[in-house]
């Protein structure tokens, strides 16, 4: 069993009864996760290409925090969610839940993972079984656990429905098609909480909802997090929502992490040009602040055969020779503390060879401005 070195951090929360590693042990560590999908074609069904959906992603999620994961379609964020949940086998990499490697010898059995980590899916026609009543959908998980009776599972379900703001008497016996989008999403949340997880992965959990309902559900998620002592991984393409709900943010581009750091640092001073552009793409609600020029040209590229070097370089306004030949390193996200801000861009790395890279003098200046220096 591996224990990554962590600097001890002050912690103000009481420990969860099922806690193992103590407050400094991250809730979840993902180390160098890879998933490539082969593409077969032709008469002989030979492999002709590979989609590098998730290509060496490492990060940790601290206990009680919300890690936001953002990126455009095709960046691999949904694949990452399914890999973390073990709904899909990863090609390589390691997932450690509260100090125990999942699914490995002497590690955590998959069944325990199921109880500790759950997922909320995007509201869509396929998120709930149309043949199950709301109560059945929520009770299904608990009823499959050893030693939980049908009756007990139903009790759990009814309690949870009340907790997510649906009166069990009124909604328990309904079918999904009798619910509005927001109500369905509450059921999805209740179902994820039915096994009393410690960490919940929310994959575009509010993206399909109307704005007024989205706000209701976000409020609910915050309430539940505090009430049930949860840790969230919040995956979304909506940067406003991620800003509101996250403590730290991870930005993905074509299967890789390009930037990770505390939400305020990322939003106030994004280091990666991709993050910068994404933030500029957020629409203002003020009609007097109109955009005349799209901040980012072109479409999100295809994850089949991604570009060499830095994967963002074909769309990057600051790309130089080095960007297409070498891949910028992100740094060790697992050793970084919760206030560290890491960027996989040559412009943020002194001596990288990029003309805009900071000099030693710049770094000293920056260190003076910010008491906690950036890791370089």
């Amino acid at each position: 069993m591996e224990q990554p070195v962590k600097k001890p951090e002050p912690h103000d929360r009481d420990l969860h009864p099922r806690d193992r590693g103590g407050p400094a042990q991250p809730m979840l560590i993902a180390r160098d996760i890879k998933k490539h999908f082969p593409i077969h074609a032709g008469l002989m069904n030979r492999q002709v290409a590979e989609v590098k959906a998730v290509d060496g992603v490492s990060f940790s999620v601290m206990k009680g925090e919300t890690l936001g994961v953002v990126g455009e379609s095709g960046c691999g964020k949904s694949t990452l969610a399914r890999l973390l949940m073990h709904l899909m086998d990863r090609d390589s990499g390691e997932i450690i839940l509260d100090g125990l490697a999942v699914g490995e010898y002497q590690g955590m059995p998959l069944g325990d993972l199921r109880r500790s980590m759950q997922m909320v899916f995007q509201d869509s026609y396929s998120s709930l079984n149309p043949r199950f009543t709301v109560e059945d959908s929520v009770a299904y998980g608990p009823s499959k656990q050893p030693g939980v009776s049908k009756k007990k599972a139903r009790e759990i379900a009814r309690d949870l429905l009340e907790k997510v703001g649906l009166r069990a008497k009124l909604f328990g016996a309904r079918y999904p098609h009798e619910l509005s989008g927001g109500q369905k999403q509450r059921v999805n949340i209740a179902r994820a909480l039915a096994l009393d997880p410690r960490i919940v992965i929310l994959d575009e959990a509010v993206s399909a909802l109307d704005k007024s309902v989205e706000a209701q559900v976000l409020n609910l998620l915050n309430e539940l997090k505090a009430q049930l002592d949860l840790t969230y991984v919040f995956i979304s393409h909506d940067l406003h929502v991620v800003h509101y709900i996250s403590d730290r943010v991870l930005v993905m581009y074509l299967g890789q992490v390009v930037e990770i750091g505390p939400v305020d640092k990322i939003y106030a001073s994004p280091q990666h040009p991709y993050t910068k552009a994404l933030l500029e793409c957020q629409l203002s609600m003020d009609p007097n602040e109109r955009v005349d020029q799209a901040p980012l040209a072109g479409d999100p590229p295809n994850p089949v055969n991604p570009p060499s070097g830095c994967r963002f370089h074909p769309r990057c306004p600051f790309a130089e020779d080095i960007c297409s030949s070498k891949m910028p390193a992100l740094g060790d996200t697992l050793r970084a503390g919760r206030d560290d801000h890491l960027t996989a861009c040559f412009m943020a790395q002194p001596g990288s060879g990029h003309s805009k890279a900071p000099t030693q003098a710049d770094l000293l200046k920056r260190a003076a401005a910010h008491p906690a220096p950036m890791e370089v």
Partner: protein
Amino acid sequence: MTDATSDPISFDQDADLPQAVVRGYWASVWNRLKYDYVTLFCLALIILIVLSAVFAPWLAPYDPEKSSMAYRLKPVGHDKYILGSDEQGRDILSRILYGGRVSLAMGILPVALGTIIGGIFGIIAGYYGGKVNMIIMRTMDVFFAFPSVLLAVAISGSLGGGIQNQLASLTIVFIPPLCRVAETAASQVRNMDFVDAARASGASTFSILKDHVLITVISPVLVYASTLVSASILLASGLSFLGLGVSPPTPDWGLMLSTLRQSIWVQPLVCAIPGIAILITSIAFNIVSDGLRVAMDVKS
């Protein structure tokens, strides 16, 4: 908006729809079905036909196999034989009633067996995908490649006549199409988020197949199977007609049609009666299956 921060628990309640009548799935299917009078009529008709076949010994006025040289080929409305008599002087009504037993059994049993076997293979192929799917579905395709009549005749022909062999050959004919329907439905369910959610909650593959996949696959398969009942009656009749089904003295609609064929110029109406029986039964099954399809569609 400082006043908008009240407890989230009370959301969604006050402004909600008035409490809808909540029913179970089958109850809601019935609720839709009960306004579909054509389907209900055909359902009643099928029940009537089945009952009359079951109670044939009590209902039939004569022994269906007893011939009478004096009363050969009597017309419909004859004093003694309401529906006339055949070329051996046997009562058509009695033979239709008794013949319904074989014909209905041949309509329903092969389809039922095919549904179970094809359904299981289809669910396994659809849910597992990959190589398992390829092996099962390519095998099915081999059978599917032949026209069903040809396949039934070929299998029956090689197995020989008789009721068991007819049953076996018809079952084999119906497995591939039912397997295909089940496979399509199961492979769609496999990619649904609620199946992933069930996996994420630690449910075993068997539980998922039983609880999530089966319930979704069952309605398209049942609907399709009910359309096959009429096809099965027709195929069975065809086999009997060719002499590959039941052997002669036993009454069977297909067989009756076959033997009465020679007398078509003498008593056209009498000769048509077994055909009419087949027609009415098949149409009734078709309409009921159509009605079921509409009623079982959850979103309608």
